[in-house]
């Protein structure tokens, strides 16, 4: 065939907007699925999430909404009214996926629009429900936020400083983790439905999505009875951790997952760093010494003589030449200005009709050689596509 097809063209998705599912809807929409936000009168609450264009809060200025809902369409339906529910049922009978990102267990069931009711209309329908704890179990009705889910998923206990309070990762990563896995689970069910004609309910738990991030902490406990604790702010061992430099910090990883000690020492010697030769001492091959306070401090002193006279960008360039895993602790401004993401065309400039501005935002983090990326379409105004999407139903009912 000649014309390139977007990967998910023809896949039709109804999305109940909410913080638990919006990134899943975005992943689908960015690959060419038709994703329709079903918003209540007055618009979705996600339209009011910070931050805002020019710091002016309002229903049209949310940067988060503009990002998570680009490439989607919008209809307004009052699902609290029978007329709205009739329209939703009629739509669901011809859509492939219903994605409920509200985070509320039983949200659609209570409206008579749950999986059992809709699958009776369309057996191949996939319904993905993303909630804090899953649809069943003793916590199913508990109140949750990102912080609560980070706590119950265990990751919170590993975040923060060794001497301080457990500290969460930036940016509601628990909700985003749930949404990412929701996209995966949805695609698994879609592949199966397209093959067998049978859809299913995909029941995503944000708590469990956080548990996936424990690295190896569950196995540390299960196999060795060691409960891992947070260690932020300290090197894990010599040459593994965050080190200050002239204009910020770098992360250096010369031991552990990779073995780069000799390259590191060679680099520091070639740079004429005082004391670098002492890092050849056999004691540095001993993990007990590397992990001791003395060993970590001794290394930090030697490395600091070098790093404190270099910027993070200079250290990164030099480490690349030495093929060492060292990366700058970048800020968002560094990301936007840096050459790598620019060379890959990662950021996209998207018009923002309500303000007339153009918003530079992350694009898709992978490319598919047979399915070129389409131009990013701005997030819709509330109900922008109601006539297009719902109109034909009304006409059908009248004829």
């Amino acid at each position, binding site marked *: 065939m000649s014309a390139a097809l977007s990967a998910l063209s023809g896949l039709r998705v109804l999305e109940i907007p909410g913080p638990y599912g919006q990134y899943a809807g975005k992943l689908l929409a960015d690959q060419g699925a038709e994703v329709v936000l079903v918003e209540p009168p007055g618009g979705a609450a996600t339209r009011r999430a910070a931050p805002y264009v020019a710091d002016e809060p309002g229903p049209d200025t949310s940067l988060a909404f503009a990002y998570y809902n680009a490439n989607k369409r919008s209809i307004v339906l009052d699902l609290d009214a029978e007329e709205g529910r009739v329209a939703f049922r009629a739509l669901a009978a011809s859509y492939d996926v219903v994605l409920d990102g509200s985070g509320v267990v039983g949200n659609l069931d209570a409206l008579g629009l749950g999986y059992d009711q809709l699958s009776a209309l369309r057996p191949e329908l996939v319904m993905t429900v993303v909630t804090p704890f899953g649809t069943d179990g003793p916590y199913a009705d508990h109140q949750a936020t990102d912080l609560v889910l980070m706590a119950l998923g265990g990751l919170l206990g590993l975040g923060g400083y060794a001497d301080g309070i457990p*500290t969460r990762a930036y940016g509601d990563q628990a909700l985003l983790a749930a949404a990412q896995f929701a996209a995966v689970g949805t695609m698994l069910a879609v592949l199966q439905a397209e093959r067998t004609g049978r859809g299913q309910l995909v029941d995503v738990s944000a708590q469990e999505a956080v548990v996936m991030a424990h690295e190896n902490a569950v196995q540390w406990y299960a196999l060795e009875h060691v409960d891992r604790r947070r260690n932020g702010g300290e090197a894990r061992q010599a040459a593994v951790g965050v080190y200050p430099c002239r204009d910020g910090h770098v992360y250096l990883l010369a031991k552990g997952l990779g073995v780069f000690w000799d390259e590191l020492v060679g680099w520091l010697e070639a740079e004429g760093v005082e004391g670098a030769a002492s890092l050849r001492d056999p004691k540095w091959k001993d993990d007990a010494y590397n992990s001791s306070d003395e060993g970590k401090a001794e290394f930090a002193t030697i490395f600091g003589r070098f790093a404190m006279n270099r910027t993070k960008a200079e250290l990164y360039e030099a480490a690349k030449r030495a093929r060492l895993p060292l*990366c700058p602790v970048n800020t968002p401004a560094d990301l936007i200005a840096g050459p790598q993401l620019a060379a890959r065309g990662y950021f996209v400039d998207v018009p923002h009709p309500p303000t007339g501005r153009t918003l*530079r935002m992350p694009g898709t983090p992978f490319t598919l050689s047979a399915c070129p990326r389409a131009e990013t379409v701005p997030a819709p105004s509330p109900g922008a596509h109601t006539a297009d999407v719902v109109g034909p139903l009304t006409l059908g009912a009248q004829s």
Partner: protein
Amino acid sequence: MTVTALPLDGVRVVDFTWLGAGPYTTRTLADHGAEVIRIESAKRTDRLRVLPPFAGGRREGSVNRSGYFADRNSNKLGVTINLKDPAGVDLVLRLIATADVVASNFTPGTLQSLGLGYEQARAVKPDIIFLEMGMQGATGPDASVVGYGQTVSALTGLYHLSGLPGRVPVGTGTNYPDHVPAPAHSAFAVLVALRHHRRTGEGQYIDLSQAETMVSLLGPAVLDCSVNGRDNGPRGNRADYAAPQGVYPAAGEDRWIAISVLDDAQWTSLTAELDVPELADAYPAAADRHAAHDEIDAALAKRTAAADPFELAARLQARGVPAAAVNTFGDLIESDPQLAHRGHFAVLDHPEMGPSVYNAPPYRLRGVDGGDVGAIMRTPAPLLGQHTRDVCSRVLGLDDATIDELAGRGVLG
């Protein structure tokens, strides 16, 4: 209705992935029915095979006792082939000729230099789906930079944005991008490509950047910078949408309770439960609570410090306040009632490790055995080379004499 088949039945994956992000990607495919064949070198094994924790706390000189490795490799087959030997490369190409997907998280270009890149794979299987997931993708000036999850966290802003103002930046305390962002996006991309293949017969090359998957999860911070020129830096546990929100000390060693207040009603309930009416009176509105967050945190900490975190969280939840004890990993396995109810942890009987704990996927496909994780969590991680003979015989059609001869020459090592 129960669908008994798995979604990826009939899909074969030739899996070169190692360490963290790659194996978690192909694990998703294996769990859901794909036949995932790990290609390993006996000389240069996946480093996770020799990193702790180990079954019984003892490595015993084995490459088959690491729980770090095992949890990333459920339901896979393990094959050893020497890729430095042309006969080994030839065997792998014959395997690729029967496969649907090739996956790698080596630095992009590594497979090509071994004679196993996309073009070489496409020569034997024109419609192959070929995933490379380099730290920074396969193109651009930094495509060949070596790195790991922690360096990705630094590079992408997660470190800068996580932690406390004025202190050294901290991330999650883990290689976070390896465990959720990179593998979830990679698995999604492969599934999308499988759908495209089914509809058009076309395979394709997937160029995924692990760093970009992480940046895509920091979208609002990127936009605040690109549009407003702002960098808020780290804010600890605080958020625009809640006040107070924090982690407070509780009774016991390193025990904590997380509490979020989203609205005035929850504030009223929290202050009633903790018996601090003076706080309720002093800070009735959200704006007051944001402004006086430090004072409120100090006052709340005094009231939580002697409480059992699980009991207090239950009392707050009963009043509708989002709250939870900070689970330890022992809590997760042994006592969290929700994870137990959901069956999140599966126990698989491993030939060397014995019965051991694995994550199930964080979603239930209710059409697959009603959502019973037993249908998904079937076999433990492979021993090094456990399935070499099986794959050579069953998939490649080699007879025993040929397999013995290849093994004798060191091709299957």
